[in-house]
């Protein structure tokens, strides 16, 4: 089972590995576009990387569109885990 801390760690790994963002910047309140510099093409790659990292399928999940902050991603992944558990 993936704990909240594991979700944070693995998500942050994606941002470091795929988008070369320094660890210090990876705070939950950070806006992934304005603060971390991602654009629409990066979001495509973010989805691919998260799918691979967590073994989930989220490409067609509407909730991806409303993600703004890093914290939104943590919560989204955690909610997926909860849904699966239930």
């Amino acid at each position, binding site marked *: 089972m993936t704990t909240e801390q594991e979700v944070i760690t693995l998500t942050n790994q994606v941002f470091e590995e795929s988008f070369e963002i320094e660890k210090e910047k990876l705070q939950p309140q950070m806006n992934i576009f304005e603060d971390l510099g991602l654009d629409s093409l990066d979001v495509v790659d973010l989805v*691919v990387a998260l*799918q691979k990292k967590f073994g989930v399928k989220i490409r067609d999940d509407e909730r991806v569109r409303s993600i703004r902050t890093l914290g939104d991603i943590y919560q989204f992944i955690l909610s997926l885990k909860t849904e699966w558990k239930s």
Partner: protein
Amino acid sequence: MKRVVITGVGAVSPLGNDVPSLIEGIEQGKSAVQYMEGWEQYTGLRSLVGAPAELKDEKSIPRKSRRSMGRMSFFAVQATQQAIADAGLEQKELSSGRVGCVIGSTMGGAESLNDAFETMLPEKDLSQLTSMRFFQCVSHTAAMNVSQYLGLTGYVMATSAACASASQALGAGYDIIRLGKQDVVLCGGAEELHPTVTGSFDVLFATSVNYNDIPHRTPRPFDRERDGLVCGEGSGILVLEEYEHALMRKAKIYAEIVGYHTCGSGAHVSQSNKDAMVFCLREALASAHISPGEVDYINAHATATMQGDKEEAEAIRDIFGDEVPVSGLKGYIGHTLGASGSLELIVSLAMMEKGLVYPTLNLKTVSPDCEGIHHVMHPLAWDIRVMVKNCFAFGGINAALVCKKVNHQ
């Protein structure tokens, strides 16, 4: 028509990542051909040699520009940066709308294309494809990435004619400037070495297969013991500039492009055709108003395939007899395919500047079917005022450029 001159050069090659190291390697008679570790895993691939270039410093390109670049685009961007610096062009000019680029390749980014298929095909699943695969592997990837990264806002085009891609890029740039559509066009080609690329020639029995244990002895253009081509990689970019524009900037002028022609053989997709080569060369010379007797040097396509070399030697013999020195450069750097026309033109310009013809490496005994032309087998001090660069590609596509020294410089 406007006049067109060459005012800058840049190269990433199997013999080094800039023009001086490429020239130095050739002057030292070095071969960049090596055994390709790991290629033996491909069943049916018989040619296990290649001439790789070194990919380095790519991390100096910011991520958002770098993400759309595959191997060949890195080569092209780095070669273009060198050429721009060599020509002394400023950034504001690059973004004036009067500076463009035409950069060709055989098939786009082979490595990225292969990776895309490896991701997608096993499970027939597209969901793991990243957004950048398309940009890394399309046939205009080098031109697109060069123009985006360097802020070019003029013409952006990509030629795709296999081994004539770079020559066609140069020819297109030449025509664009002659017509007054652009002041400067950054022209050339880029290519990456990959087993799928060598393999596509290997299945046609066009590759060198007998020298896997002694790679530096192949390819052997025009030689009795030649047995096929060896693929290489890299990028060569030249700055083509309108003559008056270059004079106004007091730019160094390497040479003037005075003639160009490209044509199809209309005969066969893979077999070289002497008559089509002769036609191409004659048309290029006619467009330059230059007679065969005025040509001082021919840089041959000379891939070291059995039929290609024979047909080219016959074509040269028909037009020039045995008077004009001929050499080829693929013994040093392999066949860089879509980049060969520009990389080899850059080396030819160095020959013109130095008054020295570099010999055909690995040509030890001229094959009987390639006799009757002036093969250069040792360094030759020679005044080169006019030269011809040949490129004869799969698909029956031929291209020839005629360059002339600019006298008052």
